[in-house]
């Protein structure tokens, strides 16, 4: 489940980066979203969460902000039904 979520995140984040004319480096589970290593900003991350909700029908943030900084941590939030 986490693997397929990881793949979905990589696909959608790649699309978001491509829309800005950027190329996403290969994602790892410990890739940090906003530490400058990825060509995305907070708006892009917010966009990713909206798209993930549209694709999965799940919104782990409905009850409020849950902590995550890495791709792996975000994938895990979707893996467990919120």
């Amino acid at each position, binding site marked *: 489940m986490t693997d397929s979520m990881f793949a979905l995140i990589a696909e959608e984040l790649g699309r978001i980066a491509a829309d800005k004319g950027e190329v996403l480096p290969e994602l790892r589970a410990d890739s940090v979203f906003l530490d400058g290593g990825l060509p995305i900003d907070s*708006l892009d991350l*917010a966009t990713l969460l*909206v*798209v993930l909700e*549209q694709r999965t029908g799940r919104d782990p*943030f409905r009850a409020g902000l849950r902590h995550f900084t890495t791709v792996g941590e975000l994938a895990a939030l979707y893996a467990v039904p919120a």
Partner: protein
Amino acid sequence: MTAERPSWIHPGFRLVEDEACFGWSDLVSLPVPAGGIVLADRTSLTVAALAAAQRADAGLLLRRHAGPGEDWVPAPGFTVTLESSGTTRTPKRITHDFNILRNRIRAPHDAGARWLLTYEPAAFAGLQVILTAAAAGALLVAAAPGGGIAGLARTARQHAVTHVSGTPSFWRAFLTAGGDLPSLRSITLGGEAADQALLDRLRRGFPAARIRHIYASTEAGALFAVTDGQAGFPAAWLVDGREGTALRIRGGVLEVRGPRAMVAASTEVRTGDGWLNTGDLVEVTGERVLFAGRLDGLVNVGGVKVSPERVEQRLLAVPGVADAAVMPVASPITGFLLTATVVPDAGVDEAALRDALRGACADLVPAARPRAIRFADSLPLSVAGKKSRKGPS
């Protein structure tokens, strides 16, 4: 014994509802609930209840939904109380002097006019259409409730209607409803800002029609009509006023002053010197004042205040877009984010359209761009026929 026909109903007035045709003698014989409270889900009952309340010189409450709220007590004399369209919250009630409502109707006798009712009969805009058709001695066609746009389009064709008043959202959907649309003589838009792309489509689709869009504020009701086929209104009206209403812009918001604006019951929106704050954001572009969304519709995206309606107008102007809705969604990262749902014209390449939509927003600050764009066959509309604008909460 038949009660005397009210003066606001021309003897030629006819109502078609559910394939049945009503004249005054049919309407007056309809049973009207006592007590002045009527669930106005039928146009026939609405007209009968208005006439009965006038005969009794009593107040009338036209309800749009069943449910609690039957404890209403009418003020003395003939007044009409309408409910706002809120379905979840308790509807707001606004009482109107019937003679003021009537006197705003300018409807010369026009027996050949065939009006389509696109609004609920007990909505303010619906009542205006009913009173207009009644005064003109026209035919008024009410589609069966719940039929949606397809039902309205079918009814419009079947009865070859000539006069239609509806929201811009109704018109965009009506234009995409398919089939031959009737040849209209009169087109009225109200309730939402009319964008230039829609006005141009209507002009092309109905070359013989008189097209006008109405500006109304929640508190003051209809204030003026624009008939030149252009979105917004002429900037010269900021100097000269329009239809007895003075207009000015303060802090980017349209303010109005005049007898019509005085009807406003609420005092909290007054500025202290008789001007009424409409809450509508406007921008002056050349010789034109254009609407740019609602002040209370601004949403905060990562610290930037953006107007979903303004972005929506950008999308509506893109060729191949039949309708579009830009909505804020809550985001744990940026507070809110704008998303768009777009109804493409038939046969449009979606990948190319997606590029064009993105291009139309490319010069906006990143926070104002719709970040997720979805395509759909239609947009959900509220019971008032407008795009459902969920507040940013």
